[in-house]
Protein backbone atom coordinates (compact mmCIF):
# COMPACT_ATOMS: atom_id res chain seq x y z
CA UNK A 1 0.00 0.00 0.00
CA UNK A 2 1.15 3.48 -0.84
CA UNK A 3 2.32 5.80 1.92
CA UNK A 4 1.23 9.42 1.72
CA UNK A 5 3.34 10.59 4.65
CA UNK A 6 6.67 9.07 5.47
CA UNK A 7 9.01 10.04 8.29
CA UNK A 8 12.29 8.18 8.51
CA UNK A 9 14.46 8.39 11.61
CA UNK A 10 13.47 11.98 12.19
CA UNK A 11 15.10 13.78 15.12
CA UNK A 12 14.27 17.23 16.39
CA UNK A 13 15.53 18.72 19.63
CA UNK A 14 14.31 21.79 21.48
CA UNK A 15 15.15 23.07 24.91
CA UNK A 16 13.82 20.45 27.26
CA UNK A 17 12.12 18.37 24.59
CA UNK A 18 13.17 15.95 21.90
CA UNK A 19 11.63 13.84 19.16
CA UNK A 20 13.73 10.74 18.96
CA UNK A 21 14.26 8.62 15.87
CA UNK A 22 10.68 9.03 14.72
CA UNK A 23 9.64 6.75 11.84
CA UNK A 24 6.00 6.98 10.87
CA UNK A 25 4.13 6.15 7.70
CA UNK A 26 0.56 7.08 6.86
CA UNK A 27 -1.33 4.95 4.37
CA UNK A 28 -3.12 6.39 1.38
CA UNK A 29 -6.89 6.09 1.37
CA UNK A 30 -7.28 5.71 5.12
CA UNK A 31 -7.85 7.70 8.28
CA UNK A 32 -5.00 7.67 10.75
CA UNK A 33 -5.66 8.88 14.28
CA UNK A 34 -2.63 10.37 15.98
CA UNK A 35 -2.74 10.00 19.75
CA UNK A 36 -0.59 10.75 22.76
CA UNK A 37 -0.80 12.90 25.89
CA UNK A 38 -0.20 16.62 26.09
CA UNK A 39 3.34 17.70 25.30
CA UNK A 40 4.55 14.38 23.93
CA UNK A 41 5.29 15.83 20.50
CA UNK A 42 2.07 15.57 18.50
CA UNK A 43 2.03 19.20 17.34
CA UNK A 44 5.76 19.15 16.67
CA UNK A 45 5.34 16.07 14.53
CA UNK A 46 2.52 17.71 12.59
CA UNK A 47 4.61 20.85 12.08
CA UNK A 48 7.45 18.71 10.76
CA UNK A 49 5.05 16.97 8.38
CA UNK A 50 3.88 20.36 7.11
CA UNK A 51 7.40 21.78 6.80
CA UNK A 52 6.67 24.41 9.43
CA UNK A 53 9.71 23.00 11.19
CA UNK A 54 12.77 21.36 9.69
CA UNK A 55 14.14 18.19 11.26
CA UNK A 56 17.65 18.11 12.72
CA UNK A 57 18.17 14.83 10.93
CA UNK A 58 16.13 12.22 9.09
CA UNK A 59 13.94 12.24 5.99
CA UNK A 60 10.39 13.48 5.52
CA UNK A 61 8.45 12.87 2.34
CA UNK A 62 4.84 13.45 1.32
CA UNK A 63 3.27 11.82 -1.72
CA UNK A 64 6.78 10.41 -2.28
CA UNK A 65 8.17 13.93 -2.75
CA UNK A 66 10.48 15.92 -0.51
CA UNK A 67 10.05 19.52 0.57
CA UNK A 68 13.45 20.64 -0.66
CA UNK A 69 12.42 20.32 -4.27
CA UNK A 70 8.63 20.16 -4.24
CA UNK A 71 7.45 22.40 -1.41
CA UNK A 72 4.67 24.17 -3.31
CA UNK A 73 3.49 21.08 -5.11
CA UNK A 74 3.15 19.22 -1.81
CA UNK A 75 1.33 22.08 -0.08
CA UNK A 76 -1.11 22.36 -2.98
CA UNK A 77 -2.26 18.86 -2.12
CA UNK A 78 -2.69 19.37 1.64
CA UNK A 79 -5.71 20.73 3.47
CA UNK A 80 -4.94 21.80 7.03
CA UNK A 81 -6.89 22.51 10.20
CA UNK A 82 -5.21 23.84 13.33
CA UNK A 83 -6.58 23.78 16.85
CA UNK A 84 -6.65 27.58 17.02
CA UNK A 85 -7.58 30.37 14.64
CA UNK A 86 -4.86 31.18 12.12
CA UNK A 87 -6.93 33.55 9.99
CA UNK A 88 -6.86 37.34 10.11
CA UNK A 89 -9.40 38.22 12.75
CA UNK A 90 -10.41 41.70 11.70
CA UNK A 91 -11.70 40.71 8.26
CA UNK A 92 -14.75 38.72 7.17
CA UNK A 93 -14.94 35.16 5.93
CA UNK A 94 -15.64 36.41 2.41
CA UNK A 95 -12.52 38.59 2.52
CA UNK A 96 -10.45 35.75 3.91
CA UNK A 97 -11.62 33.56 1.06
CA UNK A 98 -10.35 36.14 -1.41
CA UNK A 99 -6.93 35.81 0.19
CA UNK A 100 -6.83 32.00 0.36
CA UNK A 101 -8.45 31.19 -2.97
CA UNK A 102 -5.70 32.43 -5.35
CA UNK A 103 -3.13 30.32 -3.50
CA UNK A 104 -4.67 27.09 -4.76
CA UNK A 105 -4.81 25.86 -8.36
CA UNK A 106 -7.74 23.56 -7.66
CA UNK A 107 -9.86 25.91 -5.57
CA UNK A 108 -13.58 25.34 -6.10
CA UNK A 109 -15.98 28.08 -4.99
CA UNK A 110 -18.98 25.75 -5.27
CA UNK A 111 -17.55 23.38 -2.67
CA UNK A 112 -16.63 26.29 -0.42
CA UNK A 113 -20.12 27.79 -0.48
CA UNK A 114 -21.64 24.34 0.06
CA UNK A 115 -19.74 24.03 3.32
CA UNK A 116 -20.45 27.63 4.29
CA UNK A 117 -24.17 26.90 3.87
CA UNK A 118 -23.98 23.53 5.57
CA UNK A 119 -22.16 25.05 8.55
CA UNK A 120 -24.38 28.14 8.52
CA UNK A 121 -21.36 30.45 8.60
CA UNK A 122 -21.84 34.21 8.16
CA UNK A 123 -19.81 35.53 5.22
CA UNK A 124 -20.03 39.19 6.19
CA UNK A 125 -19.09 39.16 9.86
CA UNK A 126 -15.52 39.64 11.09
CA UNK A 127 -13.88 36.34 11.94
CA UNK A 128 -13.09 37.58 15.46
CA UNK A 129 -16.81 37.36 16.30
CA UNK A 130 -16.83 33.62 15.54
CA UNK A 131 -17.21 31.04 18.30
CA UNK A 132 -14.69 28.26 18.67
CA UNK A 133 -16.96 25.88 16.79
CA UNK A 134 -17.56 28.34 13.94
CA UNK A 135 -13.83 28.95 13.69
CA UNK A 136 -13.25 25.24 13.32
CA UNK A 137 -15.98 24.97 10.70
CA UNK A 138 -14.44 27.86 8.77
CA UNK A 139 -11.03 26.14 8.86
CA UNK A 140 -12.63 22.97 7.65
CA UNK A 141 -14.36 24.77 4.78
CA UNK A 142 -11.00 26.19 3.67
CA UNK A 143 -9.27 22.83 4.06
CA UNK A 144 -11.82 20.98 1.96
CA UNK A 145 -12.38 23.46 -0.89
CA UNK A 146 -9.28 22.85 -2.96
CA UNK A 147 -9.61 19.12 -3.55
CA UNK A 148 -6.76 18.30 -1.19
CA UNK A 149 -5.67 14.68 -1.22
CA UNK A 150 -4.34 14.80 2.32
CA UNK A 151 -6.18 16.43 5.20
CA UNK A 152 -4.01 17.15 8.25
CA UNK A 153 -5.74 18.27 11.41
CA UNK A 154 -4.26 19.18 14.76
CA UNK A 155 -6.80 18.54 17.52
CA UNK A 156 -9.81 19.46 15.37
CA UNK A 157 -12.34 18.39 17.99
CA UNK A 158 -10.83 19.98 21.08
CA UNK A 159 -13.23 22.41 22.72
CA UNK A 160 -16.15 21.40 20.52
CA UNK A 161 -19.52 20.11 21.61
CA UNK A 162 -20.50 16.47 20.99
CA UNK A 163 -22.98 17.38 18.26
CA UNK A 164 -20.43 19.13 16.14
CA UNK A 165 -17.88 16.38 16.83
CA UNK A 166 -20.37 13.91 15.38
CA UNK A 167 -21.03 16.18 12.39
CA UNK A 168 -17.32 16.37 11.76
CA UNK A 169 -17.06 12.58 11.75
CA UNK A 170 -19.92 12.42 9.23
CA UNK A 171 -18.06 14.81 6.96
CA UNK A 172 -14.93 12.71 7.26
CA UNK A 173 -16.92 9.58 6.44
CA UNK A 174 -18.23 11.31 3.32
CA UNK A 175 -14.70 12.25 2.31
CA UNK A 176 -13.43 8.72 2.76
CA UNK A 177 -15.78 7.43 0.12
CA UNK A 178 -13.09 8.66 -2.24
CA UNK A 179 -10.21 6.22 -1.94
CA UNK A 180 -7.69 8.84 -3.10
CA UNK A 181 -8.16 10.84 0.11
CA UNK A 182 -6.10 10.44 3.24
CA UNK A 183 -6.78 11.92 6.65
CA UNK A 184 -4.25 12.33 9.43
CA UNK A 185 -5.45 13.92 12.63
CA UNK A 186 -4.31 14.26 16.19
CA UNK A 187 -6.69 14.17 19.10
CA UNK A 188 -6.82 13.39 22.74
CA UNK A 189 -10.54 12.68 22.63
CA UNK A 190 -9.96 9.09 21.70
CA UNK A 191 -13.61 8.12 21.46
CA UNK A 192 -13.74 10.24 18.29
CA UNK A 193 -11.46 7.68 16.72
CA UNK A 194 -13.53 4.58 17.42
CA UNK A 195 -15.86 5.11 14.50
CA UNK A 196 -13.54 6.61 11.95
CA UNK A 197 -9.87 5.74 12.41
CA UNK A 198 -8.45 2.94 10.30
CA UNK A 199 -4.99 3.21 11.80
CA UNK A 200 -3.82 4.48 15.16
CA UNK A 201 -0.42 6.05 15.58
CA UNK A 202 0.60 6.42 19.20
CA UNK A 203 3.55 8.47 20.42
CA UNK A 204 4.82 9.01 23.92
CA UNK A 205 7.64 11.27 25.16
CA UNK A 206 8.84 12.07 21.66
CA UNK A 207 8.94 8.45 20.61
CA UNK A 208 6.81 6.41 18.28
CA UNK A 209 5.22 3.57 20.26
CA UNK A 210 3.14 1.95 17.51
CA UNK A 211 1.11 2.33 14.34
CA UNK A 212 -1.51 -0.37 14.03
CA UNK A 213 -4.77 -1.17 12.36
CA UNK A 214 -7.43 -0.04 14.78
CA UNK A 215 -8.97 -3.51 15.19
CA UNK A 216 -5.52 -4.98 15.76
CA UNK A 217 -5.20 -3.11 19.03
CA UNK A 218 -7.83 -5.20 20.79
CA UNK A 219 -6.23 -8.32 19.36
CA UNK A 220 -2.81 -7.46 20.76
CA UNK A 221 -3.61 -5.52 23.90
CA UNK A 222 -5.77 -6.36 26.87
CA UNK A 223 -6.44 -5.17 30.37
CA UNK A 224 -5.50 -7.98 32.73
CA UNK A 225 -7.13 -8.36 36.12
CA UNK A 226 -6.15 -10.96 38.65
CA UNK A 227 -5.00 -11.74 42.15
CA UNK A 228 -1.87 -10.04 43.34
CA UNK A 229 -0.18 -13.32 44.26
CA UNK A 230 0.11 -14.14 40.54
CA UNK A 231 2.71 -11.42 40.25
CA UNK A 232 6.38 -12.04 40.73
CA UNK A 233 9.57 -10.71 39.17
CA UNK A 234 9.08 -12.79 36.02
CA UNK A 235 5.39 -12.36 35.45
CA UNK A 236 5.59 -8.62 36.04
CA UNK A 237 7.73 -8.40 32.91
CA UNK A 238 4.62 -9.34 30.93
CA UNK A 239 2.78 -6.18 31.89
CA UNK A 240 2.86 -2.41 31.57
CA UNK A 241 1.83 -0.05 34.35
CA UNK A 242 0.75 -2.52 37.02
CA UNK A 243 -1.71 -1.16 39.56
CA UNK A 244 -1.99 -3.18 42.75
CA UNK A 245 -4.62 -2.96 45.45
CA UNK A 246 -5.88 -5.14 48.28
CA UNK A 247 -8.34 -6.73 45.91
CA UNK A 248 -5.93 -7.65 43.17
CA UNK A 249 -4.00 -6.10 40.32
CA UNK A 250 -4.78 -4.44 37.01
CA UNK A 251 -2.30 -4.04 34.19
CA UNK A 252 -1.95 -3.80 30.44
CA UNK A 253 -0.52 -6.60 28.36
CA UNK A 254 0.89 -5.92 24.91
CA UNK A 255 0.68 -9.58 23.99
CA UNK A 256 -2.80 -10.81 24.77
CA UNK A 257 -2.23 -14.33 23.42
CA UNK A 258 0.89 -14.98 25.47
CA UNK A 259 -0.77 -13.67 28.60
CA UNK A 260 -3.79 -15.89 27.96
CA UNK A 261 -1.53 -18.92 27.55
CA UNK A 262 0.52 -18.06 30.60
CA UNK A 263 -2.27 -17.35 33.03
CA UNK A 264 -5.20 -19.22 31.52
CA UNK A 265 -8.36 -18.80 33.54
CA UNK A 266 -6.65 -17.32 36.57
CA UNK A 267 -6.98 -13.81 35.15
CA UNK A 268 -9.69 -11.81 33.42
CA UNK A 269 -8.83 -10.23 30.07
CA UNK A 270 -10.77 -7.17 29.00
CA UNK A 271 -10.88 -5.12 25.83
CA UNK A 272 -8.81 -1.94 26.43
CA UNK A 273 -9.84 1.50 25.24
CA UNK A 274 -7.30 3.78 23.60
CA UNK A 275 -7.32 5.80 26.79
CA UNK A 276 -6.36 2.71 28.77
CA UNK A 277 -3.45 2.12 26.47
CA UNK A 278 -2.28 5.73 26.76
CA UNK A 279 -2.63 5.70 30.53
CA UNK A 280 -0.87 2.40 31.19
CA UNK A 281 1.90 3.17 28.73
CA UNK A 282 2.57 6.45 30.48
CA UNK A 283 2.58 4.77 33.89
CA UNK A 284 4.76 1.98 32.56
CA UNK A 285 7.27 4.43 31.11
CA UNK A 286 7.34 6.53 34.25
CA UNK A 287 8.00 3.48 36.41
CA UNK A 288 10.63 2.35 34.00
CA UNK A 289 12.29 5.74 34.15
CA UNK A 290 12.09 5.71 37.96
CA UNK A 291 13.56 2.29 38.50
CA UNK A 292 16.28 2.53 35.90
CA UNK A 293 17.50 6.09 36.28
Amino acid at each position, binding site marked *: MENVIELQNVNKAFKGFELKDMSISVKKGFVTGFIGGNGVGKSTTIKLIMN*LLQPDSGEISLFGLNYKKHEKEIKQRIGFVFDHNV*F*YEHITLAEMKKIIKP*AYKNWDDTIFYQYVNLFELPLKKPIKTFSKGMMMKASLAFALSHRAELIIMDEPTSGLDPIFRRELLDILHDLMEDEEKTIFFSTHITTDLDRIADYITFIHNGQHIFTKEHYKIEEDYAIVKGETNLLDRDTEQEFLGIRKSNHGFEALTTNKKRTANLFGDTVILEKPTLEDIMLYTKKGNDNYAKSYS
Partner: protein
Amino acid sequence: MLNLIRKDIVLQKNTLVILLPALLIALLIDRSIIWVGVLFSFAIIMQSFALDEKPSTNLLMNSLPYTRKEIVSSKYIGACVFTFIILLTIVVGNIIIHREITQLDQLLFIAGVIVVFISFAFPFSYLFKSQYLMIACGVLFVLYLVLVNKFIPDLNDRLRAGVQTILSFDNSVLYAGGILAVVLLYMFSWMLSIRIYSRKVF
Protein backbone atom coordinates in the same frame (compact mmCIF):
# COMPACT_ATOMS: atom_id res chain seq x y z
CA MET B 1 3.86 35.59 -4.93
CA LEU B 2 1.79 38.25 -6.68
CA ASN B 3 -1.07 36.92 -4.57
CA LEU B 4 0.81 37.75 -1.40
CA ILE B 5 1.50 41.31 -2.53
CA ARG B 6 -2.10 41.76 -3.59
CA LYS B 7 -3.16 40.40 -0.21
CA ASP B 8 -1.08 43.06 1.59
CA ILE B 9 -2.55 45.86 -0.49
CA VAL B 10 -6.11 44.60 0.03
CA LEU B 11 -5.51 44.34 3.77
CA GLN B 12 -4.16 47.92 3.87
CA LYS B 13 -7.06 49.22 1.79
CA ASN B 14 -8.63 51.00 4.75
CA THR B 15 -5.35 52.55 5.83
CA LEU B 16 -4.75 53.78 2.29
CA VAL B 17 -8.20 55.33 2.19
CA ILE B 18 -7.30 57.44 5.24
CA LEU B 19 -3.64 58.01 4.44
CA LEU B 20 -3.86 59.16 0.82
CA PRO B 21 -6.38 62.01 1.43
CA ALA B 22 -4.27 63.05 4.43
CA LEU B 23 -1.30 63.19 2.10
CA LEU B 24 -3.23 65.42 -0.31
CA ILE B 25 -4.18 67.76 2.53
CA ALA B 26 -0.53 67.95 3.52
CA LEU B 27 0.24 68.86 -0.10
CA LEU B 28 -2.28 71.69 0.01
CA ILE B 29 -0.51 73.25 2.95
CA ASP B 30 3.05 72.77 1.81
CA ARG B 31 4.33 71.65 -1.56
CA SER B 32 7.63 70.26 -0.31
CA ILE B 33 6.52 67.24 1.60
CA ILE B 34 9.54 65.01 1.42
CA TRP B 35 9.43 63.97 5.04
CA VAL B 36 5.68 63.47 5.10
CA GLY B 37 6.06 61.17 2.09
CA VAL B 38 8.80 59.22 3.82
CA LEU B 39 6.83 58.97 7.05
CA PHE B 40 3.61 57.82 5.36
CA SER B 41 5.35 55.23 3.24
CA PHE B 42 7.26 53.87 6.17
CA ALA B 43 4.13 53.76 8.34
CA ILE B 44 2.08 51.79 5.86
CA ILE B 45 4.89 49.40 5.01
CA MET B 46 5.57 48.60 8.65
CA GLN B 47 1.88 48.29 9.45
CA SER B 48 1.51 45.73 6.70
CA PHE B 49 4.57 43.94 8.03
CA ALA B 50 3.36 43.92 11.63
CA LEU B 51 0.02 42.42 10.62
CA ASP B 52 1.78 39.24 9.45
CA GLU B 53 4.03 38.94 12.46
CA LYS B 54 1.75 36.90 14.70
CA PRO B 55 2.80 33.24 15.02
CA SER B 56 -0.66 32.13 13.89
CA THR B 57 -0.43 34.18 10.69
CA ASN B 58 3.01 32.77 10.02
CA LEU B 59 1.50 29.33 10.50
CA LEU B 60 -1.18 30.12 7.92
CA MET B 61 1.15 31.64 5.34
CA ASN B 62 3.59 28.78 5.59
CA SER B 63 0.87 26.14 5.39
CA LEU B 64 -0.45 27.65 2.17
CA PRO B 65 1.47 26.73 -0.95
CA TYR B 66 4.11 29.45 -0.59
CA THR B 67 7.79 29.12 0.19
CA ARG B 68 9.49 31.13 2.90
CA LYS B 69 11.53 32.85 0.20
CA GLU B 70 8.34 34.01 -1.49
CA ILE B 71 6.83 35.24 1.77
CA VAL B 72 9.87 37.43 2.49
CA SER B 73 10.22 38.58 -1.12
CA SER B 74 6.59 39.63 -1.23
CA LYS B 75 7.30 42.05 1.64
CA TYR B 76 10.30 43.57 -0.17
CA ILE B 77 8.45 43.98 -3.45
CA GLY B 78 5.32 45.09 -1.62
CA ALA B 79 7.33 47.86 0.10
CA CYS B 80 8.28 49.17 -3.36
CA VAL B 81 4.65 49.04 -4.45
CA PHE B 82 3.47 51.00 -1.39
CA THR B 83 6.20 53.59 -1.92
CA PHE B 84 5.18 53.87 -5.55
CA ILE B 85 1.56 54.46 -4.56
CA ILE B 86 2.59 57.25 -2.17
CA LEU B 87 4.90 58.85 -4.73
CA LEU B 88 2.23 58.63 -7.40
CA THR B 89 -0.22 60.35 -5.10
CA ILE B 90 2.29 63.15 -4.49
CA VAL B 91 2.96 63.61 -8.20
CA VAL B 92 -0.70 63.53 -9.17
CA GLY B 93 -1.62 65.73 -6.20
CA ASN B 94 0.99 68.30 -7.17
CA ILE B 95 -0.29 68.38 -10.74
CA ILE B 96 -3.88 68.84 -9.65
CA ILE B 97 -3.38 71.19 -6.72
CA HIS B 98 -0.35 73.25 -7.73
CA ARG B 99 -0.29 72.57 -11.47
CA GLU B 100 3.38 71.65 -11.38
CA ILE B 101 5.45 68.54 -11.93
CA THR B 102 7.29 67.25 -8.88
CA GLN B 103 11.04 67.24 -9.34
CA LEU B 104 12.53 63.83 -10.00
CA ASP B 105 15.31 64.26 -7.46
CA GLN B 106 12.76 64.84 -4.71
CA LEU B 107 10.98 61.59 -5.54
CA LEU B 108 14.23 59.71 -5.78
CA PHE B 109 15.27 61.10 -2.42
CA ILE B 110 12.05 59.90 -0.77
CA ALA B 111 12.40 56.48 -2.34
CA GLY B 112 16.05 56.32 -1.36
CA VAL B 113 15.40 57.15 2.29
CA ILE B 114 12.60 54.57 2.52
CA VAL B 115 14.71 51.89 0.90
CA VAL B 116 17.51 52.55 3.37
CA PHE B 117 15.06 52.47 6.31
CA ILE B 118 13.45 49.24 5.15
CA SER B 119 16.83 47.65 4.52
CA PHE B 120 17.52 47.90 8.23
CA ALA B 121 13.98 47.57 9.58
CA PHE B 122 13.00 44.30 7.84
CA PRO B 123 15.93 42.08 8.84
CA PHE B 124 15.75 43.55 12.34
CA SER B 125 12.03 42.78 12.58
CA TYR B 126 12.45 39.26 11.21
CA LEU B 127 15.17 38.64 13.75
CA PHE B 128 13.28 40.18 16.67
CA LYS B 129 9.93 41.89 16.29
CA SER B 130 8.84 45.11 14.65
CA GLN B 131 7.62 46.48 17.97
CA TYR B 132 11.21 46.55 19.17
CA LEU B 133 12.11 48.88 16.28
CA MET B 134 11.19 51.97 18.29
CA ILE B 135 13.29 50.78 21.19
CA ALA B 136 16.20 50.11 18.85
CA CYS B 137 15.85 53.61 17.39
CA GLY B 138 15.88 55.07 20.90
CA VAL B 139 19.01 53.16 21.81
CA LEU B 140 20.70 54.24 18.57
CA PHE B 141 19.81 57.86 19.27
CA VAL B 142 21.30 57.68 22.74
CA LEU B 143 24.45 56.10 21.30
CA TYR B 144 24.60 58.92 18.79
CA LEU B 145 24.30 61.54 21.52
CA VAL B 146 27.02 59.87 23.56
CA LEU B 147 29.21 59.73 20.47
CA VAL B 148 28.69 63.41 19.72
CA ASN B 149 29.19 64.60 23.28
CA LYS B 150 32.03 62.43 24.50
CA PHE B 151 34.09 61.19 21.63
CA ILE B 152 33.65 63.11 18.40
CA PRO B 153 32.29 66.53 19.33
CA ASP B 154 32.48 67.72 15.73
CA LEU B 155 30.64 64.67 14.29
CA ASN B 156 27.79 66.78 12.97
CA ASP B 157 30.19 69.15 11.20
CA ARG B 158 32.05 66.25 9.68
CA LEU B 159 28.83 64.72 8.40
CA ARG B 160 27.75 68.03 6.96
CA ALA B 161 31.10 68.41 5.22
CA GLY B 162 30.73 64.86 3.86
CA VAL B 163 27.31 65.59 2.43
CA GLN B 164 28.63 68.81 0.88
CA THR B 165 31.44 66.90 -0.81
CA ILE B 166 28.99 64.39 -2.22
CA LEU B 167 26.68 67.12 -3.44
CA SER B 168 29.53 68.91 -5.18
CA PHE B 169 30.06 65.89 -7.45
CA ASP B 170 28.75 65.89 -10.97
CA ASN B 171 25.03 65.19 -10.77
CA SER B 172 24.79 62.16 -13.02
CA VAL B 173 27.68 60.40 -11.32
CA LEU B 174 26.18 61.20 -7.94
CA TYR B 175 22.77 59.83 -8.85
CA ALA B 176 24.09 56.71 -10.50
CA GLY B 177 26.36 55.96 -7.57
CA GLY B 178 23.66 56.72 -5.02
CA ILE B 179 21.05 54.60 -6.73
CA LEU B 180 23.48 51.73 -7.13
CA ALA B 181 24.50 51.86 -3.48
CA VAL B 182 20.89 51.96 -2.27
CA VAL B 183 19.82 49.13 -4.57
CA LEU B 184 22.74 47.00 -3.44
CA LEU B 185 21.88 47.67 0.19
CA TYR B 186 18.27 46.63 -0.47
CA MET B 187 19.34 43.43 -2.22
CA PHE B 188 21.69 42.55 0.59
CA SER B 189 18.97 43.17 3.17
CA TRP B 190 16.56 41.04 1.12
CA MET B 191 18.93 38.07 1.04
CA LEU B 192 19.68 38.50 4.73
CA SER B 193 15.95 38.49 5.61
CA ILE B 194 15.40 35.29 3.60
CA ARG B 195 18.19 33.66 5.58
CA ILE B 196 16.79 34.83 8.90
CA TYR B 197 13.20 33.90 8.07
CA SER B 198 14.00 30.44 6.74
CA ARG B 199 15.38 29.52 10.17
CA LYS B 200 12.55 31.06 12.14
CA VAL B 201 10.46 28.84 14.42
CA PHE B 202 6.89 29.77 15.17
